[in-house]
Structures are given as C-alpha cells and as structure tokens.
C-alpha cells in the first residue's frame, strides 16, 4: 500500500541498449513508482494524472507539446547529463514545469574523456594499437612519431565546469593554457590553472597546438568551428570535440582534415550519432571518433541518476533544486 504514496516517475524504458540502467532501478524504486513509456501508453487514461516527474535518459522520452498536454500533473523533468539542447526550455517552463540537469555528476568524467582523446590523438594511440596487432608488422619503425603533449599549448573553448576540470588536468602536463569563454573567469580561478583569457577566439585558434571544444550547444555555438576557424588553426594542430557534434561544421572539418589544414581531430560527438556508415569522416586516417564516451562509466552514470533524483525530490517537495535549469 505504501507504494501508492510514492510519486510516479516516467522513464522511456528500462534496460537494453537505450534504457535506464538496470542497476539504477532499485534505487529509483526506493523514491518513486516507476513506469515506462510503454506502460504509460497502454494505460494513458489511468496513469496520465499520476505522473509527476520525468527522468530523461539519453534524451528520451522526447518531450513534445503532445506529451506535456497528456501529463497535467507533471512537475519536473530531470535530464541525465548537462546538455539541454534537445529540450524546448521555453515550452516546458511555460507549462509551469521545472527542469534540472546534472552538472556536478558529469564534469570529471567528461574532462577525463577530453584528456583521453587529446592524449590518444597526439600520440597516435589507436593507430599504434593496429600496428601492434597487425599481421604485417615485422618491426616497430623508429621514425613513426607522434606529438608531444607536455609543454604544448591547449586552447579550451568553453570554460564551464568541464572546461575548468580539463584545465586542471592539462596543467599537470605543464601545458600552456589559453581559454575563450563568454565570460572571463575570476583572477584566482585563472591563476589556479595558469590559464590565459583570449577575448578573441582567433587568438586562441592561432596559438594552440590542441583546441578543445567544451561549450554547450546553443544558437550562438552552432557551427562555431567552421572553415574560417579551421584555417586560423595551426596546420600542426589537433581539434578535440567533447561538446556536441553541431558545434563543428562537419563538412568544413572533412575538408580541413583531407587537405592538411589541421593535423588531426578527435571527436567524441558527431551529428548524428552514430554517423551514417558511409560518412566520409569515418574513412579519414587522421581522425579518431568515439561513441559518445563522455560520461560512460559505472560511477558517473550512478552519480547522474542520484543528482537527477535529488533534483526531482526537491522540486516535488517545493524545495530549492540543486541544479535547476531556467530558459535564457
């Protein structure tokens, strides 16, 4: 009988390759009555009034006006992850529904992903692994070389939580750190990581050996890196993207990599994900693409669900939410 007192949480599905992780279900069920989209659709008449919260897992279920209209008592939508570009914030907020993301849970893991890609790309790690196992390999060529990371210049575009954690890590590699951001960080914050602010993105692009994209996707950052920006970069530079695929003009990137305008790229994100199997980016030698690893660890996914639950419970109890997201 107690179960009926728990608020009803709607998720897209549980388990499988897209659903909320099975390992999180018990935890969710201690706080909520869990229903999936399938269960909801089968019993819309009964369930629609009960749903008070939605937990978005990898951008699903899709939040559209139709869904919102069918959930009159929906109070809060919590997003797994920090990017909110898949949501119409104005629409949702206009219905009086609160929204939350998980900035604290994601930042370390995403920063680690950025560093992993930077190191792998600089040192040609993936290529090296192929050589190490290839049937044709008879010896390791001594003139097969990568680029030094220690002491190189890293330009971070987007100095939020994730960007800052990348800077902290890069500093330990004695990298020179430049950054470009909407707002300059406080002096103490800059000094703690030895980061130099570049008001003009061009200055950062021209001086960096590694350019790391750690911005949110917004109308302002859509195709932020295009032909012009790539041409401003050093031809020995490497571009790393851990933000969103749409921050980069993929056609321009393809051309730049093909013609040696920049040396290489490492992308954890593309548009779409995955890329079509015949996409030209997949055929390039000087690129590594990873399947959106950003937060994919047991520990971080768990922390994400915990942060989402904390936000949902706060919203349902009329308390301040730890990570509320408001429309701009």
């Amino acid at each position: 009988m107690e179960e009926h007192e728990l608020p009803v949480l709607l998720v897209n599905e549980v388990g499988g390759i897209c659903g909320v992780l099975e390992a999180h279900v018990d935890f969710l069920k201690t706080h909520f009555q869990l229903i999936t989209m399938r269960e909801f659709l089968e019993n819309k008449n009964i369930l629609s009034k009960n749903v008070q919260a939605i937990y978005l897992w990898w951008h699903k279920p899709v939040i559209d006006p139709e869904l919102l209209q069918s959930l009159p008592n929906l109070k809060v939508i919590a997003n797994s992850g920090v990017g909110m570009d898949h949501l119409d914030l104005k629409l949702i907020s206009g219905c009086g529904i609160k929204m939350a993301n998980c900035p604290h849970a994601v930042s370390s893991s995403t920063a680690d992903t950025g560093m992993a890609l930077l190191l792998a790309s600089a040192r040609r790690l993936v290529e090296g692994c192929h050589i190490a196992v290839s049937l044709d390999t008879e010896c390791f060529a001594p003139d097969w070389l990568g680029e030094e990371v220690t002491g190189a210049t890293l330009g971070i575009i987007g100095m939020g939580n994730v960007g800052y954690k990348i800077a902290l890590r890069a500093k330990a590699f004695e990298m020179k750190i430049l950054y470009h951001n909407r707002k300059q960080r406080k002096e103490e914050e800059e000094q703690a990581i030895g980061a130099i602010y570049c008001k003009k993105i061009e200055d950062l692009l021209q001086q960096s050996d590694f350019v790391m994209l750690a911005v949110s996707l917004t109308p302002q950052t859509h195709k932020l890196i295009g032909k012009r920006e790539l041409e401003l970069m050093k031809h020995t530079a490497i571009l790393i993207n851990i933000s969103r695929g749409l921050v980069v003009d993929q056609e321009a990137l393809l051309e730049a990599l093909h013609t040696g305008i920049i040396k290489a790229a490492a992308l954890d994100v593309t548009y779409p994900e995955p890329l079509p199997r015949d996409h030209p980016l997949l055929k390039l030698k000087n690129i590594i693409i990873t399947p959106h690893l950003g937060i994919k660890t047991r520990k971080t996914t768990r922390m994400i669900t915990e942060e989402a639950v904390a936000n949902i419970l706060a919203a349902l109890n009329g308390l301040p939410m730890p990570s509320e997201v408001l429309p701009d």
Partner: protein
Amino acid sequence: MYQPHSVMGDQELPGVLILGVGGVEGVLENHVGLLKKNFHLITMKEFLENKKELSEKIKSIFIFERRPTIDRGLLESLPNLKVIANSGVGVDHLDLKLISTFGVKVTSTPQAVSDSTADTGMALMLASARRLVEGCQIAVSPDTERFAVDWLGVEVTGATLGIIGMGRIGYKVAKRAKAFDMKILYHNRKRRKEEEEQAVGAIYCKKMEDLLQQSDFVMLVVNLTPQTHRLIGKRELELMKPTATLINISRGAVVDQDALVEALQNKVIRAAALDVTYPEPLPRNHSLLKLKNIIITPHIGTATVQATCMMTEEAITNMLAVLNGLPIPSEVCPK
C-alpha cells in the same frame, strides 16, 4: 676505399660510431646534422670496411634503438673509446660491468624521456579505463546502428593508482594523476622524501602486496634489472583487484607474460595496457594479441618528434662532457 673528408675541421672532431642512418635500426635522418656538428660520424658499415684507419678515431658510440650491440669483440677493437651514450633510459641491453672493465663510461638520457613516457602511461591508463580503442572500432563499424548506453568503462577521476617504481618517470606520472584527483600509492626500493610525497599526495607502500591489493590501476615504471625481472607474475596478479587494470611502460620482461595471458583470460584482473612486451614486436600468433581486454602499443614511450630530438641532444651533451673531462650529466654506473 676510405676517402678522408675534404673539410679539415671534420677530421679533428672526435669519431662517433653509430649503427647506421635511417631504416629500421638507424639513427633518425634528421638527427644526423646534430651529430655531425660535434662529431665525425662513422657508421658500422664504414668501420667494418676500414677497421685499421677508423678504430683509433672512434672515441664514442651513440646507441639508438639498442644498436649497435656492444660486445667484448667490439670493445677490444676500439682502443680509444671513452663513452657509450645510450638514447633512452633503459640500459638492460648493456653489460655495464663488461663495459666498465674497459674504462668506458656509459650515459643515458633521463631528462629527455621522462615527460614523454609519463604522458604515455597516462594515455594508456585513460584509453584502457574508458575503452577508447574498442569505442573507436564501434564508432566506425559497419554493424553499428546505435551507441549502447549500457556500454561502460571505469572511472579514472578519484580512483586509486599504484605506481611501482617511483623514479623520475614514476614521479611525473604521479603529478599528472594527482590532477585527476587520483589516490596515489607507490612502491619503490627507496622511500621518497616527505616533501616529494606530499607534493603529489603519494602514500608509500613498503610491501608491494599492499599496493596491489588496493589499486584500481597498477602502473609499472621500474628499470629492468635481475630484481625486477618477472616482478609481476601469477601471485601478484592474483593479489590485484578483479576490477583492476595493469599498465606497463617499463620493459616487457618485468611481467610474466604467460601469467598475464591467463589472468586476463580468467578475468583475474579487468584489463591490461602494454607499451612494452618481450619480444617487440610479439610473434603474430601470440596469445596476448588475441585477447579482448588488452591494448598493446608499439613502444611509443618516447615516440614524439620533440622527445627523440631531445634524446639525441642529451646523448651528445653527455658524450662531449666525457670527452672534455667535464662533469657527466647522466652517467650510468654498474651496481
């Protein structure tokens, strides 16, 4: 027929013996200029063709990629040899005692290699933990329709890193790992000074077992010596956590490879990442190459444009110091 160089200055420069230039084992082409500034460059082929004229001119040997091989015969044929400068910091391929009986000094390049090798260790740890290589295969595979959300790696931030071998390179690894908020344990012949430990937040494990039992990542950063040969075997692997990853950036022979194959097959440990094996490369049918939970890189420890150049420069500095009777920056003495 040996032709004397037409430039007078060249013949007054001390002779340095190298295996050759370019190819699989030769000195990198674009380092030849660096050597020629200070030395009369003599290849092994030239030497063997003109032993009489050249044997007395050779004052130094520059070893690149473990070549040329230094044996008694070679040492006996070079009466004026003063120094053997090794490119790299591992000298397990050199018989230090034998060389010292000829009054010849041996030097290595610890400064040039340490950053690059520490970076390699970090690259391997991150790549293994986050399943980067596997992920790249998924990203391009024709069979991939969606990226599975339950496909997970293990966290690096906040995990425990156990460093076995806390020399220059081990310490640089610790500095980098600290920035990832890792808890750092270390095992070393000698304990480091307290300030050094505190600077990286490293905790000394006098017993290697303690380190093995507590670490999420075990990184091998020792020299290869008789004491470290097969330092990590069946027993050590069984002491490690089943969720742990072994990273080797030292020498292949520090690990019992057969024991490692078994440990990985039976999931005694989660995974391994090896920049070094024995031999290098492994035979193409070796069991290690078939495992799913391993990544192997082709000894990329110092394989950067910058590091290789610095190694040649450091070797040259050491050779000149010996030949000019100056303090030697990086002499290696037999134990």
